[in-house]
Every structure is written in C-alpha cells, then in structure tokens.
C-alpha cells in the first residue's frame, strides 16, 4: 500500500521565504501524479519534503497510514530520480546500478537479482558490461532510472528527469516512463515545468503557482475546465487566447463584447459574440453584466474554414494575419483582431498569409470567461 497524503503542509525557510503554503493532496496507490508549474512555484520543494530531504515547517505527510514527518529519508521506502543525475564514469552499467546497494551492504546475490531484474524491465540487459561513455543519452537516462528501481521502493519521486535531454529523446523517454509505471505498478510522483509532459504522462495533475495549489484534476478536465486564468494559460500549447472584453445582457441573452470602436470617429469595430445558454447554468453570469471580463478561447476553437464559419455565425470576426507557422499536421495563424492578439490552429491546407485580412469564427460554446480582478473562472 503506497498511498500518500499531504495535509496542510508548509515550507518556510529561515530567511522568511515561504516556498509551499497549505498544500493538501491525497495520492492513491499506484497513481501517476504530476506536479507542474513555473520555476520557483514550490513543486520540487514539495517533492523533497515527501522524500525527507527538506524538513516540513508545518503539516503532516503520510505514506500509507504512517506519518513520516520525522522518518529519515532512507526509511521512507522511496526512490528518487533527479534532473542532474551523474553516472560513475569508470563503472559498468551493472556496477552503476549496484553501487548504492553495495554501500548499503546488500548481499551480493540479492544485488545481482535486483540489477538483472531492473535491467530486464529497462531493456538494458545487453548493456550491463558497458561503461557510461559508450551509452546514448536515452540509455544513460535508463541507467539512472535503474538505480532507483533496484531499491524496490513503494513510491518513485522524479524531479524533472528529462529536462537535460533533447526534444526527440524526451518524447521517447516520456513513453518509456509511462510504460515503466505500468510495469512496476507503484506510485509515481513526477515534477516538471513542461505542460506537455504533464498532460501526456499523468493520471492526475497538480498545477502550482507561488507555492499554492491552483487546481488538481485529470489532464482532460484541466484542459477543458481550468479553475482560473493561470491554469487556463499554463495548460495547453499554444496557450489559450485571452481577450479583454465586456459582458452584456440583452433580454435574456448574454454577449461578450470586445473591440476598439471610437465613439466619436466611429473608427474600429466592436464585436459582440452571443453566448449559449449553457454558459449561465448556475446564474453566475448575472453579477458580471456590464463589467469587464477576460474571454479565453483555445486556438483550436478559432476557425477559418468556410464550413465552420457558416456553422458558428455568432462568433464571426475579422482579423489581420501577422505570422503563419506551418507545423506539418497543422498551421498556426497569429492574428490581430482589434488590437487583441488571437492565435488559431487551423488546417495545413489553409492559404492565409501574413498581411491578409481574413474572416474567422470563435466557437461560442468553447468560450471561457474569467474575472478580471480575481482571475477566477466565471464559466467554462
């Protein structure tokens, strides 16, 4: 049983810096949980507190049913893999994986069994006699993982283990680590600042900022139902478009209005997008009528195909194309719509080029609204 529970955990450094505040999280046995957030948000500190490498200032950490606040790291039944791993250059792969066990005076036969088992899981069996300099980047990374596996822990803690790899290798290792999680059937806690890693690997994601948990949810829910502006902007690549707008109500219908129309010269245009009724399920929109809000729309929910423009006539606006990026399977259009930047993910067959003025449509059902002051979600 390797469930984890962090209850009201704080980390305050003697200098006064508070790295983590009121952290509450229940992690189920065999779960693959990701801590994600920008640099300095407290995710690594949280991981190190779970490991016992940082004392907690307040709160409680449970591994299974046991409070481990005062338990030494080596007695917590955990294993860690860090970003800046170093292999012993003069030792073979076998010895690299066995070294920690040797220092802990593990019997030789047991060491051999564990190393061979780890090598089998990581597909390193044929490389056991090689030295690190004869390995590729991915193989070295697998040796680093092997050093953790041989400890046979209940919980794996991984702190940005792929950050030092190039993009291609990183993508490959993402899959390998996910497979490893399935093979080992243990709890994984994985820290990253890369939202792609978070979205592709985790069963649940914890989004952090300034030492505080912003949202804990499945990757899909985080993407579809972000709880605030930060989560909406952090999760998703390219990131969600944010447009400063105003919420209006005419009869029983809500509209978001944005644009730059000058009341005297009538220069510029103001756009009004009709919101579907589903956006006001709990009547939350009423209190924002007449107020400024932030409208969020994902790039894939902005379209320029004629068929979709016809399908969503309520969201039609005109925009100037500034930059186009052909990514192969899709094209990104970076546009300016009444002084607001809008990015669209469209078909690669699209013919718009920089300087063009094109008609696009914003899918009203996919609009998110955020409170401009608190940055909390009004509706998703």
């Amino acid at each position, binding site marked *: 049983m390797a469930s984890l529970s962090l209850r009201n955990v704080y980390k305050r450094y003697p*200098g006064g810096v508070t790295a983590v505040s009121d952290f509450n999280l229940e992690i189920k046995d065999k779960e693959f949980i990701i801590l994600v957030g920008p640099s300095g948000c407290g995710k690594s500190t949280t991981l190190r507190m779970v490991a016992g490498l940082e004392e907690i200032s307040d709160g409680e950490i449970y591994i299974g049913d046991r409070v481990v606040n005062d338990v030494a790291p080596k007695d917590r039944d955990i294993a860690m*893999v860090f970003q800046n*791993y170093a292999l012993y250059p003069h030792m073979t792969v076998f010895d690299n994986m066995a070294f920690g066990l040797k220092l802990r005076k593990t019997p030789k036969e047991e060491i051999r069994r564990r190393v061979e088992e780890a090598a089998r899981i990581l597909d390193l069996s044929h490389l056991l006699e090689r030295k690190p300099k004869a390995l590729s980047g991915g193989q070295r990374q697998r040796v680093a993982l092997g*050093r*953790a596996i041989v400890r046979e822990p209940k919980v794996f803690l991984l702190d940005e283990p792929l950050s030092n790899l190039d993009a291609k290798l990183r993508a490959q290792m993402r899959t390998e680590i996910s497979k490893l999680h399935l093979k080992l059937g243990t709890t994984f806690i994985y820290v990253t600042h890369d939202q792609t890693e978070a979205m592709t690997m985790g069963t649940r994601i914890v989004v952090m900022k300034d030492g505080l948990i912003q949202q804990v949810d499945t990757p899909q829910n985080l993407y579809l139902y972000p709880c605030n502006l930060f989560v909406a902007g952090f999760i998703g690549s390219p990131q969600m478009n944010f447009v400063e707008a105003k919420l209006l109500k005419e009869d029983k219908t809500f509209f978001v209005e944005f644009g730059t129309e000058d009341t005297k010269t009538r220069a510029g245009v103001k756009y009004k997008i009709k919101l579907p009724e589903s956006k006001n399920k709990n009547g939350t929109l009423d209190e924002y009528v007449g107020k400024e809000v932030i409208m969020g729309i994902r790039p894939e929910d902005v379209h320029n195909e004629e068929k979709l423009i016809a399908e969503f006539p309520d969201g039609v606006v005109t925009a100037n194309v500034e930059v186009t990026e052909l990514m192969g399977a899709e094209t990104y259009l970076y546009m300016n719509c009444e002084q607001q930047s809008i990015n669209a993910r469209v078909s690669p067959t699209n013919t718009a080029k920089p300087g063009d003025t094109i008609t696009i449509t914003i899918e009203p059902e996919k609009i998110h609204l955020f409170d401009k002051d608190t940055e909390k979600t009004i509706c998703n």
Partner: protein
Amino acid sequence: MANRLFQSIVQQMKDAVDRTIGVIDSNGNIIACSELSKIGETLTPDLSLIAKNDIFTLEDYTYKAIGSNQSGEYYVFVAGNDPFAEKYCTILAISFSNIKFYYDEKYDRSNFIKNVILNNILPGDIYIRARELHFNNDVQRTALIIRTTEPTDVVVYDVVQNLFPDKTKDFVISINENDIALIKETKAGINNNDIEKLAMSIADTLSGEFYTRVVIGIGTSVEGISELSRSFKEAQAALEVGKVFDTEKSIISYDNLGIARLIYQLPTTLCQTYLREVFKRGSIQSLDQETLFTIQKFFENNLNVSETSRKLFVHRNTLVYRLEKIKRITGLDLREFDHAIVFKIALMVHKYLQADPVKY
C-alpha cells in the same frame, strides 16, 4: 603507488620471515606478496571483521589493517594462525604504516593539494613540489566544498571519489567529518553555470541515491596551483554566506553572492555602526515576525502595495496600515525607494550580525 612500494618492502622482508606475507586492498585483492604468483588473486575475508579487530585470524591467514585507521585501504596478511603469525603481522603493519605515511607525505599528489588548500606548505615550496609531482600549472581548477548537513551512514567521500575517479586531474579530499573538498580541473572558458550544474549533479546523486542532503560551496576558477587556496577559501566563504542569506539554496557560488559578499567582508564594528545609524535604539527588535514577513513580501513584489496585499491575502488598507506602523517605529517609509534600499541592506546586516558566521 602502493603496490610497488609494498612489493619492494615485502621482497626485502621475505628472507627474514619464513612464511608467506603480503598486502591486500579493500576489495581483498592481493597487491603485494612474497609469492609472486599470488599477486592478483583475491582473498575473501570479511574485511569489516578485520576492521573491528586489532588482529584477525581466518582459516590459514592472520590479518591486520595498515595505518591507525582501522577501516583502512590496505591490510597486511601472514600465512598461519599461530602467535608468531600475529607478531609478524603486527611488525609488518607498523612498518608498512610508517612507510606509507612518509610516502604519502612526500609523493602523494592528493596530499600535496590538501596541504596547498589548507596553507600547510610554504608558498615558495609549492612551485618546486608541483614540478616534482608533474602538475600542470597552466590549467584551470575550481575548488568545491561538499558539506553534509546531517549525519549519514553513507561514506560521501566514496561516492564523490567514484564520481570523479581520474586521480590525475581531480582531487577529492576529506577536510573534516562534514566537509569534502573537490578540486576539479576545468576546461578553459568553462563558465560558472557549468560548474554549478556539475555541483548540482553531485548534490542530486547524493540525494537521489543515498538520501544525503548536502550544500555545496563553489570558489572561483583559478589558474596555477598556488591560487587553489584562494578558491578553496572562497568556497568556504560561500557556504558561510549561504548559511546566512541563502538558506533555501543547496549550491552557493562565490561568484553569485552579490551584496551578501560585500556585507560578509565588512568588519563587525562597521556593521554595528551602520545599524545604529539606520535604526533608532531597539526599533528593529520591536518588529515582530509578521511585520518582517510583510516587509519581505513587499520587497519581493517590487514595493507594489496592491500586488503585495493580494499575495498576502490582506486588504490593501491593512498593508498600508502596517507600512505606516513600520514608518512610525523605524522612521523609514518603505514605499520610497531610497528608504526601502536602506532598510533592505540594514536587514541583511542585522541578519549577518545575528548569524555571526566564520570569517575566511
């Protein structure tokens, strides 16, 4: 070095002792023996038992550790388990210990580096000894100090030595029970970020593999052996300054200490004078923990009242009230840049005086 040295002594002793004698290393490999054919073979006694006993007998051999350190690198062995074997063993161990000690003193490169960084060698002798030991004086080297922050049952020295096994370029030296110095040869043009990354890999390996938390101080890169002591002192200073100002960091580089380095180099009396000048008598002591936390957040948020109040989850007016209170107590209005900078430095000086770090 030890193999040839020990073998030469064993050869000389062979005729005086009428039985097989030799030396094994910490893995049980015979590195010197009166029967030449046995060199390279492995004896497999439990070395931890030898370490625990002054003299240890197992099957047909009697063993004793060489040197005062019981868990030494080498062990002498004598064939037989009778009282004479024990006597021979003791005599040989004393003899080998002394020879090894003098040899280390004179020819061990690591020992030489240790003497250089600890200033145990006359400046004039450094150049001569460096030449005798074939040191390249033109390469860059950096001193790092790896300090364990809590007791550990893992020998950190062994781990670091295994991470940097090239004994001709890198030197791992045990300074005391908590500190290990790593003198690392670095390529010309290597920047501080690379050294910090290297230090991070040491810290991460020790944390990840051995659950051992360390802080690492880094000195500046220097050229020439005689400059190594400066780099070492800087690494020591970095750790001391880090203990006061960068408690959350595990890698502290002397090159990145910023204003903390200036404060560290100021005489204590000057610091006290400055504090008296800035704060009225006792005024800094009357600031409670919550107020100091508020001040810190205010600085972190670039003296922005709205942003700070949002981060502190307090109303803007509450923050303004707190800032007014600070102004009343100290005479400094933190919303003004000049006052804020005076306060910031004064707080650092205060912290420094309270911590009373060791000066290097």
